[in-house]
């Protein structure tokens, strides 16, 4: 049973196009995230949503817009794609137990985006 799923797994597109990546989690978590992993395998957070509300918005171009229709879904829409957007994008989710403890995040399989 897949916990965090993403579609598509691979996405090849041309510069200037608009594309979306979808993410769904069936863990009952209330917080979801988008991460970008660059060619050097460095994972960096882009956004987080808690109960459909945007919580973390790192320094990400406005061309990236997350949308959370409900607690189980967090989609990422990218406008006017650029060569530098090529990377692997990971969705993750977690359950915030309380305000003092850290809480593990569970990751999806990733979407490899290639912009040509």
């Amino acid at each position, binding site marked *: 049973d897949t916990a965090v799923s993403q579609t598509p797994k691979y996405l090849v597109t041309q510069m200037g196009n608009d594309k979306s990546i979808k993410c769904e989690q069936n863990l009952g978590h209330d917080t979801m995230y988008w991460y970008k992993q660059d060619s050097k395998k460095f994972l960096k957070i882009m956004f987080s949503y808690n109960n459909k509300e945007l919580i973390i918005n790192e320094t990400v171009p406005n061309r990236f817009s997350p949308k959370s229709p409900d607690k189980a879904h967090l989609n990422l829409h990218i406008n006017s794609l650029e060569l530098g957007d090529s990377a692997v994008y990971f969705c993750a989710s977690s359950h915030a137990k309380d305000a003092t*403890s850290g809480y593990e995040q569970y990751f999806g*399989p990733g979407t490899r985006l290639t912009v040509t």
Partner: protein
Amino acid sequence: EDQVTQSPEALRLQEGESSSLNCSYTVSGLRGLFWYRQDPGKGPEFLFTLYSAGEEKEKERLKATLTKKESFLHITAPKPEDSATYLCAAQGGGVFGNEKLTFGTGTRLTIIP
């Protein structure tokens, strides 16, 4: 700014040869230190959470430990299937729900049969 540094960048071991991976962190108000395993073409897989200095967690051939500045992932008598990239991440304090997970760049571990 929160920082997480992992060493070495890559490590090749013979099967059965024990070793340790290092994770140094600078995080204000540490909420948790996490270890993940990532196989090629897959998402990070959660291994351990450590919350306070002195804490240890074990799973099969892996043991994670935590001090106030570092965490170590000890691998005992590794097997080829332990080959992967091991990622360390630290979660700092902040407004509830706004605690970021800062990742290191990982250690690529290869176990040679």
